[in-house]
């Protein structure tokens, strides 16, 4: 997907002026509330007409003020999933799902209802009214409805913000799976850094109605460390094996022990940079279940603290120490140190 936008829109006291090109199938738009993220998506979708400029998706001009081009929303083949599921309350789940599918040109109908129903596991919901669904079920049906319209681009306008944390990562899994399985590029909007890192590769930073820069999700997380005061490591672990009250996971060429949280083993974990303790020498006896040798690849300023990027075998991890501790431990690039993490410090995500 290649999306080129150069457009401006005046709305009351708010002005949106953007000029950017996004490529790749997992793009994001990140910015604080009121920065113009939703307005930008509405411009791309065709729900709001820009005052001037152009919008070009994969070589097709969707809007061009200089040539009076404005493709109507229903002809853009751009799907949208929003914060509220926006299911049609007078239609059943099944009719909601097929609303876009029936209106899609037969030539573009590559994704079938049966395949979507299976991936999203919404078969048992089909005959129900949408008012009898839970928040998570509604969002799954909304995802299915948007996918079944066979869009060439999917816009996701903070689709997780109305959900609680447990549900959020369930829905993220469905969102990722469906877009991967059916090969649909998407633009994901959020002001939550964690969601952005899980969902996207490239991120457009938006502030006060202006597109600032295009960065990777990892660069975005590092850049936000000074503001948030800490960094969250996202760990994709695999092959869990139960060993008493902990699970042993593979993490690159190493093994990590994670406390049993009483739920089925998950593969994605969150670990705060503050929960990684650094030692100059091996601590010998310590309650932390994970102690391993690592090499400092980067030490960077985090305001009042120092961020320490560690190479742990094939994987990387970011720890956070005070400046005084960094000086005492003589932390700099190439330093070999030991990192310790308690098995209880990992927060399961999905």
């Amino acid at each position, binding site marked *: 997907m290649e999306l080129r936008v150069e457009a401006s829109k005046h709305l009351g006291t708010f002005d949106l002026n953007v000029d950017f090109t996004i490529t790749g199938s997992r793009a994001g738009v990140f910015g604080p509330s009121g920065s113009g993220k939703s307005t930008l998506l509405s411009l791309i*979708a065709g*729900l709001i007409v820009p005052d001037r400029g152009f919008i070009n998706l994969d070589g097709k001009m969707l809007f061009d003020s200089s040539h009076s081009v404005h493709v*109507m*929303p*229903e002809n*853009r*083949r*751009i*799907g*949208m999933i*929003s914060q*509220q599921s*926006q299911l*049609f*309350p*007078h239609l059943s789940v099944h009719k909601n799902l097929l*609303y*876009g599918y029936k*209106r*899609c040109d037969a030539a573009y109908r590559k994704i079938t209802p049966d395949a979507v129903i299976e991936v999203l596991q919404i078969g048992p919901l089909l005959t129900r009214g949408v*008012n009898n669904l839970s928040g998570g079920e509604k969002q799954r049906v909304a995802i299915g*409805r*948007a996918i079944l*319209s066979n869009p060439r681009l999917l816009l996701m306008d903070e689709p997780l913000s109305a959900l609680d944390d447990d549900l959020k990562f369930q829905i993220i899994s469905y969102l990722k799976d469906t877009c991967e399985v059916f090969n649909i590029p998407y633009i994901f909007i959020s002001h939550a850094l964690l969601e952005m890192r899980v969902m996207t590769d490239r991120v457009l930073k938006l502030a006060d109605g202006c597109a600032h820069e295009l960065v990777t999700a990892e660069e975005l997380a590092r850049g936000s460390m000074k503001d948030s005061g800490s960094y969250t490591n996202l760990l994709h672990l695999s092959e869990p094996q139960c060993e008493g009250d902990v699970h042993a996971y593979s993490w690159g060429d190493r093994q990590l022990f994670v406390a049993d949280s009483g739920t089925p083993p998950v593969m994605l974990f969150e670990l705060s940079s503050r929960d990684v303790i650094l030692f100059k020498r091996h601590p010998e006896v310590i309650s932390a279940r994970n102690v391993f040798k690592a090499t400092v690849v980067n030490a960077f300023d985090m305001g009042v603290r120092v961020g320490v990027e560690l190479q742990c075998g094939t994987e990387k991890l970011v720890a956070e120490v005070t400046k005084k501790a960094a000086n005492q431990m003589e932390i700099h690039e190439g330093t070999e140190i030991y990192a310790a993490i308690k098995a209880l410090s990992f927060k399961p995500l999905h």
Partner: protein
Amino acid sequence: MFAFGPSDYSAIFVSVKVAVVATLISLPLAFTVAYCMTFKRFKGMLVLDVLVNLPLTLPPVVIGYLLLMLLGQNGWIGTWLLQPLGIRIIFTWKAAVIATMVVGFPLMVRAIRTNMEAIDRRLVDASRLLGAGCLDSIFTIIVPLCFRGLIAGSLLMFARGLGEFGATIIVAGNIPGVTQTIPLAIYDYVSSPNREVMAMALCCVSITISVVVLIVHEWLGKRMGRRA
């Protein structure tokens, strides 16, 4: 006891006919006006709002007189449009329909608009993004979601049509068997000596029709509520 004569049955028939036809013709017009006032932004919105609601504040007799001025043989529309086409409206049941439409129109628009304004506009946007064109979106999303308003507006228009007196008597007259409606017949009976029983009988007919319409309205409302 009482016994209805042919003119009484005619009055009942004309009343129902005028109310039904006025309601059916007004419904698409009122829906369109309510749609424009709810979903569209345009210059002259205030003027349209005032024009639509003006009959609510005007005495029906004034409305009847203005319609007479417009549609009469020497009226503006009568002279330039109706006469050349050989159409006669004044003092026919069609005039009663027009009078009912004008008087009941603001009630119908208000009922529909109130329901329409409660529709989440993002649902309409969602339907457009799913490939529905403007008309498709209107008929598959807006109409079903404001169905209660359409029913309520139709009920109000029908009720107003059954009870319309002032404007009707000016433009349609009070011709038994032709333009005489239930209220006009009741007026005649009340004005004549010893005909109160007939007036009361027609009142009972009017009440019965109204009760039936209200029951149908409630039934439809509950049915739509269950579906929603």
